[in-house]
């Protein structure tokens, strides 16, 4: 601290606490709503303290899905779908980016610059700006309502490739020379030196990409039409699609809590890595 200004410090804490409270408010209300009976949620204003239906609501959505008015798959199933797609997206992105960054850094070949630029351009073309044609390609390949359709189109990653490229450039040349003198081929060098050295970046990137995969919205919205293929995020949206009267908010909110829990826990449990990874990756 530069100087001692107790009043200013007090106000700093006060405002920060208010800020934290406002940020936490929506999730607190969601938690309370998820523990109430359906008629309690519909009161105006709804109670601000947790009710007694917590376990009942969560078991119901996990095993049967939400509500009698809108049919959806059980949330357990949706969470499984979310988990599968988040894992495939995270691991797939890391795998293909490691390989292509290795090729770009450690080999010189015709079209290298072209390959690099093609990967760079994908940064500027997120699904959102090419919705219709991408959907058409995936449907022509008969990949609608499959895990492959949910994940493979999202696996190409310029960000991850750049991160690994940047990191590989910092690996001392002596290591590659030594490996070559000892008779190790490029793939041996990749597995025994490059991958182990990249472990911290891989871990940090995995966290960010897992969250990215879990939270996908537009893409699963387009490629899933069968209830059994919905991810959690899509499932919640479908639950409120029945209109005002049909929505059982206590169950929707229980599902929302379940949809937030895995990525939020991941962030909080690995905070140090995660923050470092995020700040390093994006800058």
């Amino acid at each position, binding site marked *: 601290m530069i100087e001692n200004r107790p009043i200013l410090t007090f106000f700093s804490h006060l405002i920060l606490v208010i800020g934290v409270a406002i940020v936490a408010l929506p999730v607190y209300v969601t938690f309370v709503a998820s523990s109430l009976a359906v008629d309690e949620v519909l009161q105006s204003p709804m109670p601000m303290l947790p009710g007694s239906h917590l376990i009942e609501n969560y078991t119901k959505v996990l095993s049967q899905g939400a509500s009698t008015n809108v049919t959806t798959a059980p949330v357990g199933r949706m969470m499984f779908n979310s988990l599968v797609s988040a894992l495939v997206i995270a691991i797939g992105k890391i795998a293909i980016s490691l390989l292509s960054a290795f090729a770009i850094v450690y080999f010189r070949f015709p079209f290298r610059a072209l390959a690099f630029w093609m990967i760079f351009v994908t940064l500027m073309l997120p699904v959102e700006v090419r919705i219709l*044609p991408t959907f058409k390609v995936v449907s022509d390949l008969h990949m609608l309502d499959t895990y492959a359709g949910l994940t493979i189109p999202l696996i190409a990653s310029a960000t991850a490739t750049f991160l690994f490229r940047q990191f590989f450039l910092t690996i001392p040349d002596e290591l590659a020379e030594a490996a070559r003198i000892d008779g190790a081929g490029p793939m041996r060098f990749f597995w025994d030196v490059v991958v182990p050295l990249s472990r911290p970046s891989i871990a940090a990137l995995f966290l960010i990409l897992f969250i990215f995969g879990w939270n996908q919205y537009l893409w699963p919205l387009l490629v899933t039409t069968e209830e059994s293929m919905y991810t959690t995020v899509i499932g919640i949206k479908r639950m409120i699609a029945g209109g005002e009267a049909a929505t059982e908010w206590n169950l929707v909110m229980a599902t929302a809590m379940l949809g937030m829990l895995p990525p939020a826990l991941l962030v909080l449990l690995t905070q140090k890595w995660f923050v470092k990874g995020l700040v390093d990756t994006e800058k």
Partner: protein
Amino acid sequence: MEKRARFQSRWLPYALIAPQMAITLVFFFLPAGQAVYQSLMVQDAFGISTQFVWFDNFKDLFRNDEYLASFRVTAVFSFLVAVLGLSISLFLAVLADRVVRSATIYKTLLIWPYAVAPAIAAILWLFLFNPTLGIVAHWLQGLGIPWDPLLNGTHALIMVVVAAVWKQISYNFLFFLAGLQSIPKSLIEAAAIDGAGPVKRFVTIVFPLLSPTTFFLLVVNIIYAFIETFAIIDAATGGGPGQATQILVYKVYADGFKGLDLGSSYAQSVVLMVILITLTVVQFRYVERKVQY
């Protein structure tokens, strides 16, 4: 920067790069090319015949009042999301940086909204702002505001802005805090010895030194507001009421999948690509420059 130590192989680099290239070609370049090509065509309602019309789709687009209105909504929305998101997080980060020892605790308490899916964030706020059930709507009505985001366009826009800012605060906060903590303490101490108070120090030293971070975050937030908020709009308002929250990305989707106005949707995709390419180039230009420092 180039490596001195390289490996030699005729085929291996191509094999290594093949998976990335295959996915990029099939799912990025093919659709993007399609979008550009189709944006120059007109298809009849049954998809039987198509006709090449040069830039007619674009001309129609920029004569279309709905599209221009969507541009305005996007501009207002992005401006509010970027400015509010940045100023609130900067304010909180400056305070957290002040209370050095507790900064980590506040970081933990502010970081988790990053992990919440935008669509879920939208539904949480939709519930809070729901005119009959929502607790925040209840407070607002208690203050005499006839709150109804389902019917009132301005209210709906406020709701999606709040949800989008809420979701983005943690990200901005983390970067601002990291930026603040990397400013040399000696500079600030020197200013304090010369008699500059906290506000003066912030204006003359901290904020200018923070400007690379601020600029980076500004671009990221504008891209976020342009593109990633699709989920928030779709889950909270569906572009309504009327067209009050129909941002450009949402209109591409609505016209393509619901309105089935394909030529227009493709042309809109191309316009968005141009905007996004411009933003990304700006962002990378700046990153390149920073590397040289």
